[in-house]
């Protein structure tokens, strides 16, 4: 299953988001996940992808940003190949949300 599919599954299951609204460039805030909601989504991401996130908050405005960030973590923390849209390595020191 791709990173996008696994992340979409979390969003549909836990946030009851209509799957047709899930697009890579769609802002997560429009789906009801603001910077506070992101704190919880990152918690689910850690569990689902078995990755460890940095202690500082991470700003991921869109679903695509989240997918690329997870793929970067997977590449850095696991030997397996990330499954994804564009395997971009996450920034070395993630910036804080505004």
């Amino acid at each position, binding site marked *: 299953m791709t990173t996008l599919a696994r992340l979409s599954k979390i969003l549909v299951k836990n946030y009851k988001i209509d799957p047709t609204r899930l697009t890579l460039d769609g802002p997560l805030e429009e789906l*009801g996940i603001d910077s506070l909601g992101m704190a919880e989504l990152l918690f689910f991401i850690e569990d689902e992808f078995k990755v460890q996130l940095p202690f500082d908050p991470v700003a991921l405005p869109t679903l695509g940003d989240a997918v690329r960030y997870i793929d970067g973590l997977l590449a850095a923390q696991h030997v397996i190949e990330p499954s994804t849209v564009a395997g971009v390595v996450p920034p070395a020191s993630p910036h804080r949300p505004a």
Partner: protein
Amino acid sequence: MRRVAVTGIGVISPLGCSAVELFVNATAGRSAICRIDEPWCERLVSPLAACVNFNGDEHFEAPKLRMLDRVSQFAIVAARQAIDDARFDMANADRQRVGVFLGTGMGGSQTTDDGYKTLYADQSNRIKPFTILMGMTNAPAAWIGIEYGVTGPNLTYSTACSSSAVSIGEAWMRVRNGELDAAIAGGAEAPLSFGALKAWEALHTLASEDPTDASTSCKPFSKNRSGMVLGEGAAIVVLEDWERATKRSATIHGELIGYAVVTDASHITRPTVVGQAAAMRAALQAAACAPASIDTINAHGTGTQANDTVETAAIKQVFGADAYRIPISATKAIHGHLLGASGALEFVLSLLAMQHKVLLPTMHLELASEDCDLDYVPNCARHEVKINTVMSNSFAFGGTNAVLIARSAQ
């Protein structure tokens, strides 16, 4: 001083999720107390509770629901009902002159319980990110303020079982003195987690299960009473400056005319006749009422040995010979003890009883205790009774005794 009208009522209770349903069931004396069915119930000596039939999914979008402990869900939905009932136009109100006053004893206790389970039972460090904001005691009030853009005072009172009588009374004082035009006031509680039930059980205040019918296990003022049964829910009222309310032709459920809070300052759990009586007297004084003008009392009436005896003695001390004539209702027998939401729920029941000219029954009272010899309206409601003035008592661990007095709007 201004007069204060109650213009809106909202209820999420074990006896129903609307004022109408609550009142119909309270009048009929239908008990909401039952055996609870959870995997951990076998570890409880007496697995009883009064639960609310409530599903948060029906009231909130999923992303928001994830941030709401059950106590906040109850509070928000009850507040929506109250504001709708009042037909209160928040958009055109001066929202800095509106406040939120909420009572809760245990706040987000389910969330706290879940957190402990993760840490200590599961030996995991994966505490959920929303644990603080869901568990914090002022979350229910804060969410109500956010939902309606209310920028006046947003205050949470935690005085155990009198929390929401205190919150309504403190709101009343601010509307009365002109500081606020209106207040959303009441209480919410969701204490039916395993941890909370077990902790209450350890204190030996909970009722043992009636061997023939679990729903009758709470028996206020009865000779064979054995304690209280925990319940959950929320009750919220809209308090409004009387002139403002009449000017906009609001329906007025009653007038809140008196409130007092007097503290025992003697023992952390044991109630005192002196403290309870002083609170009733002070409320009568605040309301400028003679004791004889009280038509009925909604008692604190928990069904514990200590409370019911002390409350009866305190009522006698305040009302003298009139104590034997004033009907007293103890509705916790059927809706359970909602702790921080109890005072508000019983205040609402008092208003509804007055509006509908009904004396609510004290259920499961076959034989009263020798030292409980007043008229408790045993087992059957009385109809077509003219009620002008009601008193609602709420007493608490910690010794905070709060009393509210309301008068008919007619």
